[in-house]
């Protein structure tokens, strides 16, 4: 379900977009560039936006998490999206003419707040090109993150894929705590399987193994806790976790 949630200053919602501005410019831009907001709480986002206006650049995720499931030739993969990512769900309804057709399903992993980046926003931001450049960079960053996901899904062993996926997600979603890095996302085994190109049973088996080694465990809030060092050698880590933990 989508519902309007007022409006706010873009740079208040996403301060990283002001990285290229000096203090005075950032303050002016903060006052001038405002965005409309929408709450997304259920899984029926697809189609709500209709055909996109030529001036609608995209929707910036301000809070929450979405899973974009792509089904092509009966195979399903999934991309996790979150704060700072720019999406264009309205574009996908017009893709029927492509040689390989993909059906897209959006799933809300955590309630999402979206900012509409439309023509009015772009016009008001035009005085500060670094904001527009930063928004464009978000799209590139998303592609770069996907390419790492692709590499991970080509690893031979499922346990390695799952462990590296969690560490990969931690750069975007991780929160450092005294116990380790926490990823507060209630991702299911089935969703993780879609993200690493594996079957659900092998992801369950891999997660049980990682939990036994103490490398990935559940948190009381159904998130995930990563222990030990960032795995620069996954094979060694899984063979001798006790030797590497706390390195």
């Amino acid at each position: 379900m989508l519902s309007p949630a007022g409006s706010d200053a873009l740079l208040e919602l996403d301060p990283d977009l002001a990285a290229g501005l000096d203090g005075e410019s950032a303050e002016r831009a903060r006052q001038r560039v405002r965005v409309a907001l929408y709450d997304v709480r259920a899984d029926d986002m697809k189609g709500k936006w209709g055909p996109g206006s030529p001036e609608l650049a995209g929707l910036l995720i301000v809070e929450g998490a979405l899973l974009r499931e792509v089904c092509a030739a009966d195979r399903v993969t999934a991309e996790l999206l979150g704060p700072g990512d720019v999406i264009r769900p309205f574009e996908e309804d017009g893709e029927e003419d492509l040689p390989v057709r993909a059906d897209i399903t959006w799933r809300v992993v955590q309630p999402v707040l979206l900012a509409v980046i439309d023509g009015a926003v772009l016009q008001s931001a035009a005085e500060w090109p670094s904001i527009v450049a930063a928004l464009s960079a978000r799209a590139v960053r998303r592609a770069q993150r996907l390419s790492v996901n692709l590499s991970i899904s080509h690893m031979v062993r499922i346990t390695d894929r799952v462990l590296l996926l969690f560490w990969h997600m931690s750069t975007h979603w991780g929160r450092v705590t005294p116990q380790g890095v926490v990823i507060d996302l209630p991702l299911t085994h089935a969703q993780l399987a879609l993200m690493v190109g594996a079957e659900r049973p092998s992801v369950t088996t891999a997660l049980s193994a990682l939990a036994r080694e103490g490398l990935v465990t559940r948190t009381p809030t159904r998130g995930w806790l990563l222990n030990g060092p960032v795995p620069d050698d996954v094979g060694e880590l899984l063979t001798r976790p006790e030797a590497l933990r706390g390195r």
Partner: protein
Amino acid sequence: MQRVQRLTCTAHLDESRDELERARASAAAGDSSWAQWVREFDEGSALILRLDVEAFFDGPAGPGSVGTTNRAVWVERQLHPPLVAGQIEEAVSKDFNQLAAALRDSGVAWVTADDLALMHVQVELAPELLARLRRDRLDSYPVG
């Protein structure tokens, strides 16, 4: 030359009360993935297996084998046994670090877990597992 000759995995039913209770406790604590597995198990569409994985090799002291046992492996029940075997083949690589270490201890020096993961695993379903699949198939997929 020291080399691995073949990898085998024999899958047995392993529906222990302990594993089920652990899964039910996780489900009751709000883990939707384990809730799904428990529901499927209760409906007869999931199985819990024990996997005996063995690597046969030619070592410095002649032929030999090393093995590992992996308990409580959850798989989806399928109509065709080779589909169950396919799930097992994907899951079994979890044990390859341990197996590679055991091979090295036995004198087969130049093999890593990644090497093993690239090798074909001959999966066999134990008679009691095949019987369960056959029974389930007759129960769930009426013919005639």
